[in-house]
């Protein structure tokens, strides 16, 4: 009948208008600054650098290998390798990023840096409240602003973080075993070399390397 559709439409909007006062289903607004939608676990915005332990500078997993810098499609990562080595969270001396900047005004959240990182050092953050009127200072995140603790990572991506931790632990166990074997081998070699004192200096180094993680085996994995 003529006008039937109009009446149907009017009824629907009336149902919405009245329903918005009584039913939550018909008032879907989430009042943003006060309430927030729970972010899905897979949500991502910009990368951040994971650190272990409490000291962000010491605990950075990043070893400044610059793979992410090379792989980044829009080239928004800038890394300066350090000249020296500092002990990382496990006490191993490592090259560390002297500068690690991400220009989030360019970053397109593609996650390629995360996928290529062999050290699980860079992960995707979910923080989105980044708008600023400062074009350069506000949008160029440096090392300090990027560093977030592993606990934070667990908070935002629990499943993924546990997997990463398990993987790291497994790798560590492997590395420990390897180190032990190496240590054993070195010890054997040292014992063997005791007779011949010349190569002893050369073998001294791996011993130190292998010993350090063995000294604090529970250092990570929390």
């Amino acid at each position: 009948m003529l006008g039937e559709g109009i009446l149907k439409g009017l009824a629907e909007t009336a149902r919405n208008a009245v329903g918005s006062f009584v039913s939550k289903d018909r008032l879907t607004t989430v009042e943003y600054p006060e309430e927030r939608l729970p972010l899905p676990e897979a949500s991502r915005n910009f990368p951040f650098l994971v650190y272990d332990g409490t000291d962000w500078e010491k605990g950075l997993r990043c070893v400044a290998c610059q793979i992410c810098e090379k792989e980044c499609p829009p080239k928004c990562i800038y890394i300066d390798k350090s000249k020296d080595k500092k002990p990382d969270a496990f006490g191993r001396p490592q090259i560390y990023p002297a500068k690690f900047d991400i220009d989030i005004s360019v970053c397109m959240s593609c996650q390629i840096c995360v996928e290529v990182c062999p050290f699980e050092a860079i992960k995707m953050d979910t923080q989105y409240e980044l708008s600023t009127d400062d074009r350069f200072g506000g949008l160029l995140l440096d090392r300090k602003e990027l560093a977030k603790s592993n606990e934070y990572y667990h908070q935002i991506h629990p499943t993924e973080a546990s997997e990463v931790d398990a993987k790291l632990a497994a790798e560590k166990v492997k590395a420990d075993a390897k180190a032990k074997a190496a240590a054993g081998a070195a010890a054997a070699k040292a014992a063997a070399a005791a007779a011949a004192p010349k190569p002893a200096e050369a073998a001294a180094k791996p011993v130190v390397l292998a010993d350090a993680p063995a000294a604090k085996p529970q250092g990570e994995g929390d």
Partner: protein
Amino acid sequence: MEEGLKIELGKQGVFVTTIEELYNWGRKNSVWPMQFGLACCAIEMIATTMARYDLARFGAEVFRPSPRQADLMIISGTVTKKMAPQVVRLYNQMAEPRYVIAMGACAISGGPFKQGYNVLKGIDRYIPVDVHIPGCPPRPEALLQAFMTLQKKIEEQPLTGEGRPRHLDAEAQGEFPVPVQGEHDLEPTSNKLVWPLPVVIR
């Protein structure tokens, strides 16, 4: 007026305000965006006005189709070099006071297309941008937060002296030169007055 005296008066039930506060309150709470979208960020902008996020709560759902009646230009998406003159022209056609939000990586810096031949490396080369929202694209909440950042910025603007809004500054630039398609690039490549070439110290 002194802040302390004002609070004291407020306790006594006397509310005082200045013209500056009233004016800033008015224009901060009635920012009407302009109705145009450039690329994928526009979809998020549309989502922001929809039921779940509801930009209308801030009184900003009045998307005006005509630049004359709009206060806020949300540059939502990639500004190609072909489109840049039109964006600048639209900005010129807006009436003061006017604000610009650059939404998303492309609008701020060219984003993933930064190295492309065809994309403007950030709209702030031609027009002054008030708030930048990084993201590709930013979430609707990010736009809401940027909106609140803008409101805060408006609220804190003094009407006289240093840092006064552009439309109250007789010497400020009102009309911005519209770039034209040159042989290889837009000419001029940037508006020197709003885009002093930055020196980034790393």
